[in-house]
């Protein structure tokens, strides 16, 4: 064990021997070392969050054919720090009739729920906070605190726009959680574990995006809905309900919601990478060392984040009835059919050579995808005929 092969445990061992050398009790030393680990990881994520503000602004500018921040520092890199100072010195306005305790607790919970997810992210085979054996359930549980913070913010703000935004967001969150859980079950089946590290290690030979491409797509769609980003940004729909649940928040409290949202998007990019894109694996490059593996994971998470941004700035907002119909009548049935097929194929192909297994899984997905497209084509054809039959009648009525 040296600094390059296993940096975290190397430093932890060195610190333990140092603390015990000072005459500290063993349990206290290990507690302090865990505490240091937690603080380092969270501060790293917060620093990265600040960097994400710059990334988001720069990318949206490029999508909209603008330059983005480019004045403060090289390429505008210091811009987010200027933003933070501005947010810190802004006056904090609490509206009349707000429930003060809940109102102040909501932004804290919003950021906390996102930070909690990073406890189980395996950055490298030996760099992870904790490898829970119920990792997939933990993601769902920690994510639900975010939903709670949204309804708390809206309910305590004493504002109708906020309340409408929160109702929409909660309806969307609870709906899209079903296909998300169903697609999370698929990597669980393939890896035979709910632990994030084991799921990543199961993808050493082939990434799950090859074995379950449809699940990867559904997971991404459900994640975007969970984030409340366009085309599912009904919760803040600025042209209808101004800003939704965070309408009454100013200064740093708004900043916390904003930071939470950005980090949440990046985190789901990371989980997409872990569950489907092979986590820290990149064709043997991860064997160079854990730090290289961590960089690979961050690059993949950044790719997932970029896909989320790409969709956000390309697709327009959906109406709530379309959105819920899309979830309950399309995504949920597809996700469950896919789950059944994956379970069945996984059992039938057990014991076959890995080439046959991979091909069988992939072809199952292709077949299902083809059937879905055919069903959708038939549905859209019948819908189109309905509107075409109506159109002449409307035209004559107009004359």
């Amino acid at each position: 064990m040296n600094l390059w092969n296993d940096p975290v445990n190397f430093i932890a061992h060195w610190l333990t021997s140092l603390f015990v050398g000072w005459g500290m009790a063993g349990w206290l030393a290990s507690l302090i070392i865990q505490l240091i680990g937690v603080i380092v990881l969270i501060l790293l994520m917060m620093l990265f969050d600040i960097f994400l503000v710059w990334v988001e602004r720069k990318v949206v500018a490029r999508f909209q054919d603008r330059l983005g921040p480019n004045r403060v520092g090289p390429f505008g890199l210091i811009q987010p720090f200027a933003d933070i100072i501005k947010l810190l010195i802004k006056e904090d306005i609490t509206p009349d009739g707000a429930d003060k305790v809940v109102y102040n607790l909501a932004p804290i919970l919003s950021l906390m729920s996102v930070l909690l997810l990073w406890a189980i992210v395996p950055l490298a085979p030996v760099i992870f906070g904790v490898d829970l054996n119920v990792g997939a359930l933990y993601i769902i549980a920690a994510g639900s605190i975010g939903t709670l913070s949204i309804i708390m913010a809206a309910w305590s703000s004493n504002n109708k726009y906020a309340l409408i935004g929160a109702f929409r967001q909660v309806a969307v969150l609870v709906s899209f959680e079903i296909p998300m859980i169903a697609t999370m079950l698929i990597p669980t089946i393939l890896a035979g574990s709910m632990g994030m590290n084991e799921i990543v290690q199961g993808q050493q030979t082939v990434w799950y995006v090859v074995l379950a491409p449809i699940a990867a797509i559904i997971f991404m769609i459900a994640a975007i809905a969970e984030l409340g980003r366009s085309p599912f940004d009904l919760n803040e729909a600025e042209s209808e309900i101004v800003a939704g649940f965070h309408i009454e928040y100013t200064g740093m409290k708004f900043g916390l919601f904003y930071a939470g949202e950005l980090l949440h998007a990046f985190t789901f990019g990371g989980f997409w990478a872990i569950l489907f894109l092979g986590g820290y694996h990149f064709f043997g490059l991860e064997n160079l060392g854990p730090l290289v593996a961590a960089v690979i994971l961050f690059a993949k998470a950044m790719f997932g984040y970029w896909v989320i941004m790409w969709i956000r700035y390309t697709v327009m907002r959906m109406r709530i009835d379309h959105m819920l119909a899309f979830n309950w009548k399309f995504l949920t049935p597809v996700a469950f059919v896919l789950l059944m097929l994956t379970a069945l194929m996984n059992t039938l192909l057990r014991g076959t050579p890995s080439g046959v297994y991979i091909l069988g899984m992939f072809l199952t997905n292709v077949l299902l995808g083809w059937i879905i497209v055919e069903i959708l084509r038939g549905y859209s054809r019948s819908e189109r005929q309905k509107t075409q039959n109506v159109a002449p009648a409307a035209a004559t009525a107009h004359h």
Partner: protein
Amino acid sequence: MQNEWLYIGLFLVIATLIPVAALVTSWIVSPKKPNPIKQSTYECGMETVGENWVQFKAQYYIFALVFLVFDVETVFLFPWAVSLGRLSLFAVIEGIVFILILIAGLIYTWRKGMLEWA
């Protein structure tokens, strides 16, 4: 095992302290000059009419109810999914039958018109 949850506990504490620290810093350095106009509820320049905690559409509640059933049932599927590699074909098909019952529930809800936004 206990160590793992201790780590999560520490994470919970620190992850709460970071935003709290940000809010406290902001509270120290920011100006505090409240006045009634500034503190009034945001409403696009109009005066707010009526009670703010209004009745909401019942459809939100129905979707939440449908979700609840699915959420509880899908949690049962996780142990099945984890041990799938060791299960016999019969046990796998039993799990599939369980999912089919769930889908039958969804189809029933659909046919009853509960998934319409009207």
